[in-house]
């Protein structure tokens, strides 16, 4: 009991700085609280080691899989105290001396109890088929490879560095987090802004082959900056507040005619209002987040893309002023089920951009989704499925999960939403702009063979409001099929 409890405790303490979602109780597979870690901490011979491990590769923040450990952790606040954080003794550890190497579940170097560095890698192969692709390019393969390290120093500083092996902007995470105190922690470097639980969920714990359109396009993603964060009121409330150089990778553009948000302030509040109630509702979590960015004059960098990246709305409209995002999020994971939903609204001011040099109504983009999953093989969703109850080749078939998501992404201007009958225009100075929207239904099956292998199948139907702006002019409905294989440690 002491062992597992201590492991969980330490896991929780160390993981929080890593991931916003985790801090918010939404959190993630990338942290010490990941289901993999948690399982190892409880069951395996590396329980103490696992308790010191960090995160999945691609995000400093969260994943849906870690909430259960957090919930347990939060139900026992006194376990949060560093003084009771004693990892279990491990005979092998004593034999190894001050410097030790581990290979399972992933390569790791430890120097005494003060330094730990883990090595992570992931390979993703994806095959897409879509009506949006030309007949000669009906199917294409995508491959992504990512490597990284993550670790802890002196038990109060955690860090993570990761990058893709290809691409013109390969760096993904590069940050340190000072987390001595639960109520006030400080993070700096390159990491994701605290907006959107979906965007801040690592790929390991994604329920679908692609993130929601709202997260992919409207959430900011990662940027350089700093952030204070913590949990207060006996973990009843989580907060994050930070300043960033820009408004995130998702809004970036290489087009010099387009502008993206400059200096950005971001904050988020989350709460598990029922966390003290011992019921299936304990896991229920809600959150609200906001960002505000300076926006220079130019054409907006925000554009609408289908699930597989085809343009269906290209902003031809001048913006000037501020770009603001607000989001509401909800997550609930009773047993093998999960329910997750978000609403994100992004507005861009257009000060002095009318033909009379006055302000136009802001451009508005809204996105929402509702998704649900069910683990057919009985795993508890909040603990994650990366550790199947019966892994493949160990007497089982792994974990199998079904998933459904309905979502919509809409672009326009406030004047257009106020007067829907008025014809939209592509004029860069139009008050009622020509908008568009994409409503998407995704049905998926996820197979977790073991902690290293994950396979996803997605069938996606997209419905464009204005197909003339879509990838296949005149065709409003698009079908996509995606197979995604992920290997990693």
């Amino acid at each position, binding site marked *: 009991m002491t062992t597992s409890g201590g492991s969980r405790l330490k896991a929780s303490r160390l993981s929080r700085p890593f991931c916003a979602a985790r801090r918010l109780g939404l959190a993630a597979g990338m942290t010490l609280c990941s289901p993999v870690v948690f399982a190892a901490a409880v069951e395996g011979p590396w329980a103490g080691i696992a308790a010191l491990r960090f995160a999945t590769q691609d995000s400093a923040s969260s994943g849906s899989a870690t909430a259960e450990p957090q919930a347990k952790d939060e139900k026992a606040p006194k376990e949060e105290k560093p003084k009771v954080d004693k990892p279990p003794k491990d005979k092998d550890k004593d034999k190894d001396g001050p410097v030790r190497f581990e290979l399972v579940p992933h390569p790791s170097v430890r120097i005494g109890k003060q330094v730990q560095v883990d090595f992570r890698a992931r390979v993703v192969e994806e095959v897409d088929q879509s009506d949006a692709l030309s007949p000669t390019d009906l199917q294409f393969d995508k491959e992504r490879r990512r490597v990284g390290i993550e670790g802890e120093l002196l038990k109060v500083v955690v860090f993570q560095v990761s990058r893709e092996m290809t691409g013109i902007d390969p760096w993904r995470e590069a940050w340190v987090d000072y987390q001595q105190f639960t109520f006030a922690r400080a993070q700096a470097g390159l990491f994701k802004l605290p907006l959107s639980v979906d965007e801040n969920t690592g790929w390991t714990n994604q329920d679908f082959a692609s993130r929601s359109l709202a997260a992919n396009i409207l959430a900011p993603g990662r940027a350089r900056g700093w952030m204070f964060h913590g949990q207060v009121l006996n973990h009843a409330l989580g907060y994050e507040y930070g300043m960033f150089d820009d408004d995130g990778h998702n809004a970036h553009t290489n087009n010099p005619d387009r502008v993206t948000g400059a200096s950005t302030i971001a904050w988020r509040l989350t709460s598990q209002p029922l966390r003290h109630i011992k019921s299936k509702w304990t896991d229920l979590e809600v959150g609200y987040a906001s960002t505000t960015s300076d926006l220079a004059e130019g054409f907006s960098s925000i554009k609408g893309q289908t699930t597989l990246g085809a343009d269906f709305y290209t902003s031809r409209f001048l913006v000037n002023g501020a770009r603001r995002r607000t989001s509401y999020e909800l997550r609930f994971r009773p047993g093998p089920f999960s329910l997750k939903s978000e609403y994100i609204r992004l507005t861009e001011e257009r000060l002095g*951009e009318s*033909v009379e040099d006055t302000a136009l109504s802001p451009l508005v983009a809204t996105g929402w989704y509702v998704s649900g999953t069910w683990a057919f093989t009985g795993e508890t969703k909040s603990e994650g499925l990366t550790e199947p109850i019966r892994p493949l080749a160990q007497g089982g078939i792994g974990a199998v999960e079904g998933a459904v998501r309905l979502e919509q992404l809409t672009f326009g201007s406030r004047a257009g939403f106020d007067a829907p009958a008025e014809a939209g225009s592509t*004029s860069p*100075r139009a008050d009622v702009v020509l908008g568009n929207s994409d409503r998407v239904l995704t049905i998926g099956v996820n197979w977790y063979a073991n902690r290293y292998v994950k396979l996803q199948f997605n069938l996606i139907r997209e419905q464009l409001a204005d197909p003339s702006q879509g990838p296949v002019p005149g065709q409003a409905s698009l079908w996509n099929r995606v197979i995604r294989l992920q290997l990693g440690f």
Partner: protein
Amino acid sequence: MRRLHSVIVVAGMAMLLAGAVRTASAQTAADLFDVGTLQEIRLLVNSKDLALLRRNYGLNTRYPADMIWRNLRVRNVSVRSRGFGSRNSTKLGLLIEFDHYTSGQRFLGLRSLVLDNEWQDPSMIREQVAMSFFNRMGMPASRESFARLYINNEYQGVYGIVENIDPDYLRRTLSENEGYLYEFHWQDYWYGEYRGDDLAPYKLLFEPRTHQLESDTQLYSPIRDLFREINGADEGVWRDQVERVLDLRQFITLVAIEVYLSEWDGLTGNWAMNNFQLYRRRGSSVQLFLPWDRDRAMTQLTGDMPIFFRTDDNVLFHRAIAYADLRELYLTVLEQCAQAAVQDDWFQNAIAQSASVVAAATYQDSKKPFTNAEFDAEIQGLMGFAHLRPSFVLQQIARARSGSQ
């Protein structure tokens, strides 16, 4: 009593509203092109765009604007600089497109308008009078009127409102608009010689205004074929071959009207072929020449420009006029022009009316490159042209028919 009062007030307001709606809906393109009225057009352009428009007047970059005429405001139109010799930053020549940013948007049924800055015409009225005369002679031509133009509430001077040659114009004048329309762009002195099998030279000269997305072969092969046939060596089949690809009689008629108008910058002008558009009906190989931009008409104010002046230079006209029936057609149209000009003093009245419409506004036009005295003198000159030209042309026709020319 109080209720009755309310009813009366409401009824009155309803009548006023109905009247306003009726007034708004009563506006037509015919009102806009009413040459007896000096229109007022206001453009609203973002100050940054306007600065760019003036700075880059040599480019065809479009900028968004709103256009106001009477009680109608058209939002999200595009405006760009236009013209060749008339382009300048002081008094912008402008093309207004109503459907560039808003698909299907029309203004009085029009998809575009030209605001002609009259930069090269001290009289301000040549273009309008010439086009009116084309219309009088039954030749498809743009409707035109005059306007005071304001941009961001600053007076820009007198402009000609010119009906652009676009699919709506084609439907009005030719009763169909699904064919291929090209605007000719002057590059050098070209009298219609064959420029080879390669399509590139024709692509340079003819800009497609419809079917822009079609292949070069579809767009330019018929034009290349036209000039190949015009320059065909075999006299025995020349006319048959040319008439397969050109409405020859329409061409002769057009040249005759131009010559009557002493046009210096038209099909047989001083700078070789210029200022026309070419149209080919869908499913047909026969092409038409359409007149465009006639602000150099009536340049020879003495009215004594010979009816065969420079006509030998143009390959097509030179070969066509060798046929007796086409020559006679040419003379007949010239004769009809002279008659139509003097009938009810039409030509002089047209000049007088247009001059009276624009005079006051022209005097206030500080952006025009001419003095008010030059304007007055030019109007007087045009009146002289109207008086002298018919008799001179009739004399020339008589001489031509007698075989002395």
